[in-house]
């Protein structure tokens, strides 16, 4: 009951946040460009075309009405048409989503499986050399500009060592030698499902550099947070109790303490999603990764406001969803959470 109520309450606040986000986004996108219709048609527009498009886009109606129409269409999954590509924004976004999601999830996965153990190790050996090394490493991780790191990794691992591919999601040749049947559009998943090992390996190799670039910041952050949370937890009375009852050190660390420390780490993981999402913008540009980031940056630079609105909503929804999931997971990890 408590958990259900907690989840429902969180859902409600999430909804509130999303509506707020949509209003702000709408305001930014609709109020600011002073001639949206002209932008829509482009430089060669004639006045009658502008008038037609103004009507067609509903730009002649009062703003609140426009917002309601936008929301109404949104509920049908329609985010309007991109100015730059003239294709439905929903289609543009969903088409690129798998690529970004693959990168994002793999990057966050890397960050978690590297960051959490590093943090735990570091906390275990507080003050020792290992701790200092891990702390330095995580600080370097959060200090390295992704757009710079990506370039350097490319030069080292492709140009100098030639052990990893440079850019893109998969080698172009494979399309003919080992054609892939799309099922989910997640390359790794699809190639796994269809037992296309060659493509799987190649796609995986392509993913490494971008994912590492993306993961640098969250890894550092997670390692630091895990360390801090572990240190705090290890000071708690119940850890002293566990020690007082002769519980083995590794059980204390990896079960008694970690289960408590994982809660703040999860929160951070949820919050870093926002950082990681913007991180993909740089990573996708540098690694020519055909995802949302590249599309967003191009939309921004070409003032493609329906696309920007769509992307902002998409990003915010993703963020809210992830944090919702984190909160729900936390009610399982820590039975006290739903009481807060």
């Amino acid at each position: 009951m408590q958990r259900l109520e907690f989840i429902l309450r969180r859902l409600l606040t999430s909804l509130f946040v999303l509506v707020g986000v949509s209003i702000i986004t709408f305001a930014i996108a609709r109020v600011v460009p002073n001639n949206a219709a002209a932008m829509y048609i482009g430089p060669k527009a004639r006045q009658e075309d502008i008038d037609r498009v103004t009507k067609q886009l509903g730009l002649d109606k009062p703003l609140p009405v426009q917002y309601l129409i936008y929301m109404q269409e949104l509920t049908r999954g329609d985010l309007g048409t991109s100015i730059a590509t003239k294709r439905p924004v929903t289609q543009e976004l969903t088409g690129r989503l798998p690529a970004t999601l693959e990168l994002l999830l793999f990057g966050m996965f890397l960050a978690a499986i590297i960051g959490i153990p590093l943090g735990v190790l570091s906390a275990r050996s507080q003050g020792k050399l290992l701790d200092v090394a891990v702390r330095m490493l995580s600080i370097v991780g959060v200090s390295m500009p992704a757009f710079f790191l990506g370039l350097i990794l490319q030069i080292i691992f492709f140009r100098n060592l030639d052990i990893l591919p440079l850019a893109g999601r998969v080698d172009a040749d494979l399309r003919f030698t080992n054609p892939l049947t799309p099922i989910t559009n997640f390359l790794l998943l699809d190639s796994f499902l269809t037992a296309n090992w060659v493509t799987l390996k190649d796609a995986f190799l392509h993913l490494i550099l971008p994912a590492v670039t993306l993961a640098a910041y969250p890894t550092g952050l997670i390692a630091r947070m895990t360390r801090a949370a572990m240190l705090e937890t290890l000071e708690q009375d119940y850890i002293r109790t566990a020690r007082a009852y002769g519980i083995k050190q590794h059980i204390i660390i990896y079960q008694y303490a970690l289960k408590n420390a994982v809660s703040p780490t999860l929160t951070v993981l949820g919050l870093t999603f926002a950082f990681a999402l913007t991180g993909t913008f740089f990573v996708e540009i540098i690694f020519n990764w055909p995802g949302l980031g590249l599309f967003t940056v191009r939309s921004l630079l070409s003032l493609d406001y329906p696309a920007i609105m769509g992307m902002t909503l998409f990003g915010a929804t993703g963020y809210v969803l992830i944090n919702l999931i984190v909160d729900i997971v936390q009610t399982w990890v820590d039975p006290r959470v739903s009481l807060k």
Partner: protein
Amino acid sequence: MTIPAIPTLDIESTRTWRHVVSVIVRDPLSLASLIIIVAFILMAVFANQIAPYPEQGAGKTNAANTMAPPSADNLFGADKLGRDVLSRVIVGARSALIIPIFVVVFAVLLGAPLGALAGYKGGWVDEVIMRITDLFLAFPSLLLAMAIAFALGRGLDKAAIALIISWWPWYTRIARGVAVGLRERYFVEAAQAAGVSDAVIIFRHILPNTISPILVQATVDMGTVILAMGGLAFLGLGTQPPAPDWGLMVSEGRTYMLNQWWIATYPGLAIFIVVLAFNLLGDTLRDIFDPRQYR
């Protein structure tokens, strides 16, 4: 409402500050980071005196020298327009440091009192303020910054405004966290019992206690904001050419990364080093003030 002056330095005993300094000075890494930060600040302030070619730093071209590799004349080489990269890195320290300081200071000024208010008042005030911060946090901060830059147009000032708007909620959260903790403490109630007004309680009793966690966060955020500014410039939404900006220089130089590596590498390193220094310093401050504080 007259807001009483916040007793800033006064409220921390001098011993505490001396303690902070002594810890930093004793730890070689922290000391190094402090020296780096001070050095970069001095560099920004005296850019015109230090830079070998101050006008080139500011943007003056020197077509004859285009893409000159590092040499005695141009220690860090020259860029596409023949401008001395070293001078541009030095002059670029200005916007690289001043704007983040500005962003962080304003984000704190906006965020902290709101957070203190939310935490102190509780109830619906808290609910409303925190939902609004949730809302701003839900925008990926760079995306929000970009959207605002998009709305207001490009430029350093707009990027700064955008970043302030996306950064203040962090300080609201921190200040609120402290304030909620303090609400349980009796001195707030004692002040209420004495008839002290809410505004005075917030500014005199609550905000001063948020200083150390905020200082820690602000130091770390300096680094993060420098990165974000660099990112915005890299995407073409921050500083506009020909003004010197590290992120912009990396962006412009990345095309030549393979053959004229110096154009992008030095500004990239500058960002990395300064951010690293702020993060190291922030870490030390965190250890001193509150080893358990984390976002």
